[in-house]
């Protein structure tokens, strides 16, 4: 069974796609020093997906609650991950640290060996370079965009109040059952194909940083509401073939995970473009905003 379809059944897809050709034209293209990335605009919709982080109830780990998320605005997201050559422009401009990558990788492959901090530095530079607002997607935006390629947390873990080891053993087995073989070398863009929304390379061998912090939440014993939550924004959520949590400064998937299963092959990212609204756009176009 493909790991892609672990959660397909329960991810209610209500999104549609604006054809890429239409969405790919950057608004402020003429004043950019770098061409805008090819993007896809996802029309408003909703997903039901497992929240990231760790959840406790009555002192015991719980399956991540599944919530319906409504996206009232469209989301414009890069069709491909940021590439080696894209990232090299930021490094050349002195705004990004070189990626921690020594292998020979095609220049149109996704940039890998980048930390959360690197990804944010790129977003800042790219926003300046293009005159648009670019940022990492949140975890839920990523899940929405990845559509049927979204995997999320491992599920099917047993929860036995009297035997915490059952959970450890069953989640270990669940990871083993994914039977994922390491696939370490990044491939040229498009190598992992397109999802149903026309977005490329989700859940291939590059995990993507999101802007969502790691959060530990204690749920009320009756299942209604949250008793407390502590977030640790020194750790962010990555999405890919499975969800991962890594410290912001980590750029190597293999060294950053603390799970016992097969760690992410590579760390990369793609960005979303925020829309400032028509008035701001016109001001921006005139060079005022």
């Amino acid at each position, binding site marked *: 069974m493909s790991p892609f379809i672990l959660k397909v059944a329960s991810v209610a897809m209500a999104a549609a796609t604006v054809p890429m050709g239409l969405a790919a034209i950057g608004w402020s293209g003429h004043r950019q020093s770098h061409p805008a990335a090819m993007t896809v605009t996802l029309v408003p919709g909703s997903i039901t997906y497992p929240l990231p982080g760790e959840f*406790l109830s009555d*002192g*015991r780990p719980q399956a991540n609650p599944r919530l319906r998320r409504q996206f009232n605005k469209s989301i414009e997201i890069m069709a491909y991950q940021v590439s080696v050559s894209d990232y090299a422009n930021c490094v050349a401009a002195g705004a990004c640290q070189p990626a921690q990558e*020594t*292998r*020979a990788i095609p220049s149109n492959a996704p940039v890998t060996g980048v930390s959360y901090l690197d990804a944010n530095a790129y977003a800042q530079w790219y926003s300046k370079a293009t005159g648009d607002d670019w940022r990492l997607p949140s975890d839920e935006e990523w899940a929405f965009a990845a559509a049927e390629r979204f995997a999320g947390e491992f599920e099917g873990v047993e929860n036995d109040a*009297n*035997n*915490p*080891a*059952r959970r*450890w*053993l069953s989640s*270990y*087995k669940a*990871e*083993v059952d994914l*039977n994922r073989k*390491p696939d*370490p070398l990044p491939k040229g863009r498009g190598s992992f194909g397109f999802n149903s929304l026309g977005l490329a390379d989700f859940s291939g061998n590059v995990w993507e940083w999101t802007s969502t912090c790691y959060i*530990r939440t*204690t749920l009320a014993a009756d299942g209604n509401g949250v*008793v*407390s939550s*502590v977030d640790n924004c020194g750790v962010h959520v990555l999405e890919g073939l499975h969800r991962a949590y890594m410290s912001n400064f980590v750029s190597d998937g*293999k*060294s950053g995970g603390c799970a*016992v*299963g*097969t760690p992410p092959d590579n760390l990369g990212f793609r960005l979303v473009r925020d829309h400032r609204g028509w008035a701001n756009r016109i001001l921006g176009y005139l060079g005022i905003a």
Partner: protein
Amino acid sequence: MFTRREALFGVAIGAAAVAAMPAFSATAPQADISALPREKIKLVAPPFVHPHDQVAKGGPKIVEFTMTIEEKPVVIDSDGTTLNAMTYNGSIPGPLMVVHQDDYLELTLINPDTNSLAHNIDFHAATGALGGGELTLINPGEQVTLRFKATRSGTFVYHCAPGGAMIPWHVVSGMSGAIMVLPRDGLRNDKGEPVKYDKIFYIGENDFYVPRDEKGNFKNYESAGDGYDDIVKVMRGLIPTHVVFNGKVGSLTGDNAMKAKVGETVLIVHSQANRDTRPHLIGGHGDYVWEQGKFANPPAKDLETWFIRGGSAGSALYTFLQPGVYAYVNHNLIEAVELGATAHFMVEGEWNDDLMTQVEAPKPIATN
């Protein structure tokens, strides 16, 4: 023109000529062993061990083993780094051979002509002739049979030792393993009471020295000989690029994690032919540990971490008391996590709250 292959052979053949001389029977008084029963054992690849009796049935016998040496490329990590490996019987480490004290271990070693190098075997358990190394040096296309008496009980390393600079190179290319010589009446604890194991696992630890290119990536070589000069340079730095169990990063995790149940007693034999190591079972202990590996000495009790000297094999007996996923590591944690020396045990059974309980789950720090 002297090719590298010929140059390596040159060393080997020189040593072989020396080795050929003492290959006749010794003059010391000798028991008549022709009357002893013989048993032929089929070896299995580590971490598993061929079936054997813990307490010997009957008197001493001759136990026959056969190992075929295989030179072959072996992938040693998840990045696909390839070692031009030399192996006993195709596995790194070579298989564990089990006999009883006063048995005779009789090994037929085969070096197929598809190999390119001369090899031999030095048994730390054997007496004389450089552990048998002098009597077993064989070129590709040859085989040899050696018999030695297992006079001392314990776990012992064996390794290839074909002379000079070839010795460490063959060992760090994978040519080591271990034998276990059990006391005839089985293992005993510190009080001299018999102890038994329900399961046995053999973990061989290896240090590899893979050269890197100018960018820092690991290099591949057409053959073992092509990499020789570069590898020796890395070896002389004494800092391994990989420290692994069972020949490869992650070879005893995931699908290949070792399995046990709460209440089961496991004997873990751990060998390292070249370099010191310090096994540790995270969340468990060594109930009885033969750190130096020799069963004539009483085992140490209740160890947290044990020390295996480079060039030796030790063993630890542990009864699992709690279910879960255990990591068995070399507790130089850099070597465990960064270089690969981690294995896992999956242990099923009932949780014992008395031994451990999370009294209160993580929550925000109390403020009053």
